[in-house]
């Protein structure tokens, strides 16, 4: 025991010595600089009213929007809701009537005051129809048609930002940055075949109610391919990049600093409604038993994903571990043998549409086809469908099977499942009573037992971070908190000898531009 303690002390001393060597010891935060962020999405929308729930594009939109807008409340890493634009809140015993008092003095980035009417208008456009939002002089009131004990979780996540529409239709927020400039994608001057990616330049909001962010600017480059992003990080041309799961291993081997979220994306299969014959139940069961999720997660995705047996992940519900997806080729073959030959999947191939974008999902589709073949089921990859959306993946009604990716965008498990089901062709709603975790579990179990949706894997987000980026403190659910990030000064010795203060004389451009 004693030797372990000594080893620990030696290790700490070595670490300290390394810190001294790198001159990073307890350096005070540094204000200034431009944080260079690269995203895969070719474009982003800063209008939360336009976002499609569950889509991968929504996640990208939300990352940029979180820099420009605030929410009423936030959830900290310790399970406590913290005041943001709302200073305090109350609710009645039924959880149907909620009242939020706004923070006095909060202003939009153009200097105009935030009012309860602005907040109510914004929330009414993003919250579900079961929630009625109104404003009084002093508070924002939310009336839920059914008890909403999870309202704070909803308000702390998803598209429930507070914004105001300007006369020209663009939106403005109270957040730590505002959009200073946008550049559309253009053909490269040197190589007309190549595209110069779109960019959004965000500038620090000097008067943000929560304090000025540390960096002066954030430059977001859109539409960069994954490998290019990785290279830019390696050569110091980017500070923060999104890493595709298949590049994480390479990044780690090369010593990059990599952060990952909790699993935020579900990759799953959904059977089309047209498969409604009695034999279709057997087909669904057979495919469910044939899927080798472990190989998908551990080989295809190089251990950067988790096999999924539930619709909602464990970190969100706490009960997903109760669901199992046992693989049994033998039983799958038995079920296949009992299928009438005219059924899709038997003699006639079942068409699999890969609706999620990217080569990775195509590979997963091919893996599904291989698994199916092992159970003597015929699955054929169809030509690519809509490469951007989830809603189309869920609601389309062509013959066969669809592989889709669903991005969780709510901290409320009830709202997350409800959003997923609403995108189904029949627009199922999760009953309000399912806010109770046991009811929600029963609802999810029923859905899984129907085998209309077959979960495959859960994917976390991976982010590559340059070593000079400090205070990276993202939430497990994917909020990057870039306003709190600071960059090491180019002349760190100078920065260390002076007191860090916000820049008072930064040039402020007219805020509110919309890409």
């Amino acid at each position, binding site marked *: 025991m004693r030797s372990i*303690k000594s080893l*620990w*002390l030696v290790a*700490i*001393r070595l670490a*300290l*010595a390394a*810190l*001294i060597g790198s001159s990073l*010891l*307890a*350096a*005070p*935060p540094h204000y200034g600089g431009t944080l260079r962020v690269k995203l895969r999405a070719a474009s982003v929308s800063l209008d939360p009213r336009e976002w499609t729930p569950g889509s991968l594009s929504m996640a990208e939109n939300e990352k940029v929007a979180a820099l420009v807008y605030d929410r009423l409340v936030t*959830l*900290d*890493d*310790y*399970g*406590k*809701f913290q*005041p943001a634009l709302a*200073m305090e809140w109350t609710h009645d015993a039924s959880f149907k009537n909620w009242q939020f008092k706004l923070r006095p003095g909060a202003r939009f980035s153009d200097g105009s005051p935030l009012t309860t009417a602005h907040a109510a208008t914004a929330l009414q456009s993003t919250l579900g129809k079961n929630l009625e939002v109104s404003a009084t002089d002093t508070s924002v009131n939310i009336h839920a048609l059914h008890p909403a004990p999870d309202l*704070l*979780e909803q308000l702390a996540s998803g598209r429930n930002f507070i914004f105001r529409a300007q006369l020209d239709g663009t939106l403005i927020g109270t957040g730590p940055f505002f959009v200073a400039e946008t550049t559309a994608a253009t053909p490269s001057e040197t190589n007309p075949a190549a595209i110069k990616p779109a960019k959004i330049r965000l500038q620090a909001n000097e008067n*943000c*109610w*929560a*304090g*000025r*962010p*540390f960096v002066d600017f954030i430059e977001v480059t859109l539409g960069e391919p994954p490998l290019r992003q990785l290279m830019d990080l390696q050569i110091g041309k980017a500070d923060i990049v999104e890493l595709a799961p298949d590049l994480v291993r390479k990044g780690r081997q090369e010593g990059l600093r990599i952060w990952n979220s909790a699993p935020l994306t579900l990759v799953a299969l959904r059977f089309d409604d047209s498969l409604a014959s009695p034999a279709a139940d057997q087909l669904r069961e057979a495919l469910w038993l044939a899927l080798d999720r472990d190989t998908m997660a551990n080989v295809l995705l190089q251990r950067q994903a988790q096999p999924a047996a539930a619709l909602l992940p*464990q*970190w*969100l*519900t*706490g*009960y997903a*571990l*109760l669901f199992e997806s046992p693989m049994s080729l033998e039983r799958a073959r038995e079920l296949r043998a009992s299928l009438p030959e005219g059924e899709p999947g038997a003699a006639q191939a079942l068409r699999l549409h890969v609706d999620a974008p990217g080569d990775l999902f195509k590979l997963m589709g091919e893996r599904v086809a291989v698994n199916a073949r092992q159970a003597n089921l015929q699955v054929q990859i169809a030509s690519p469908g809509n490469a951007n959306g989830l809603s189309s993946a869920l609601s389309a009604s062509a013959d066969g099977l669809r592989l889709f990716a669903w991005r969780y965008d709510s*901290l409320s*498990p009830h709202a997350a499942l409800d959003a997923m089901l609403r995108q189904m062709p029949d627009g199922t709603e999760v009953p309000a009573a399912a806010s109770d*975790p*046991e009811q929600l*579990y029963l609802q999810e179990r029923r859905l899984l037992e129907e085998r209309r949706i077959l979960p495959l894997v859960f994917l976390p987000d991976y982010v590559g971070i340059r070593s000079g980026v*400090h*205070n*990276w*403190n993202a939430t*497990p*659910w994917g909020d990057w908190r870039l*306003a*709190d990030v600071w960059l090491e000064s180019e002349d760190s010795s100078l920065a260390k*000898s*002076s*007191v*860090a*203060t*916000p820049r008072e004389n930064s040039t402020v451009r007219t805020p509110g531009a919309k890409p």
Partner: protein
Amino acid sequence: MDSSAEHPRTENSARFFVALALCAAALAAGLLFLFASRASAEDNALQDAANRLAERVSSVPGLKGPLHLDWHADIKWTEGESERWQQAVIDAFDDRSLSFTQDPATPAPSLAVYAEETPAHVVLTAKFHLGERDEVRIVQVARALLPPAELPVTPVRLNRQLIFESSDRILDASSLWSTEGGGLALLFYKNFEVVAQRIDAKGAVQKEISLAAANLKPTRDPRGEMNPQGSFVSVQLLDKTCDFSWDSSKDVKCHADKPLPPGKSLWRPPTGLAAPCDESDWKLIIASSEPNARGVLQVVPDGAALGSDSSVLSEFPGPVLNTSGEANLNGALVVVRNLRTGNYEVYKISLACGD
């Protein structure tokens, strides 16, 4: 040296230390009482969740004890945290005549209980097999209502004691043990405003003074240090100094600081500590300030370099935010953010001689 003259001085000194020890004991007892009453309410939330789960399970017809408990705790939890929950579950089931057997040879149905953390809740799930079917019962409790979880902290050769904690951000803490009534002076950043508090030996707030007069801009890097001198307090902020008296809460005077020459700092130098055995001087160095890493405080002999072999290390359950020393160098206060609970904590530390 005249020995007769030395004797009374030694006696006075002894009296002073006895008085100091009594004050410290009173403060510790008061704070323990405060924590005990708060912990009690929080423990109730934990036990209430366990009771609700036991209630739901015991209401299933046909289920009879004894049972084998198959306990699964969140992998992020420490052993202590897991044991606390497990004991609450065992107690709750015992109260409902569904006891658990410890003897693996006893034939009894198995009850699996999972305790898992989600972003806002702890979810307790019971799963058991009854007849031909699996039964599942689930309850949840808001994490905000639960007692803070404990982190294992590696003990080193520093004596230390947790003396205060708060969910509000603590910028600085100063000991008032040498003043009448004892207690602590604390500087908070509460809801984007700097607030000074004086708490008594029982942990009750005696005075609260807002430094709104400083007209500070909200900041993501709030920093402040307080220097109490009797009833007067001087607070050093990022570019301002505020002075006030605990006796006159409305009379807070703030003024902008003059720019400092290069190399000079507004902030206090490293906190000093004296070793009681040989009166050697040591200083505290905060070794890391990243928000999501455990803090390591290093105590080095005065004049020695950081990383010196003769240093003493102490790991805290989160980043060390500030340190302040007592005038007599006997002890120091360390402000830490506990990464497990999110609370801000104040530890009193002192050097101990020997291992």
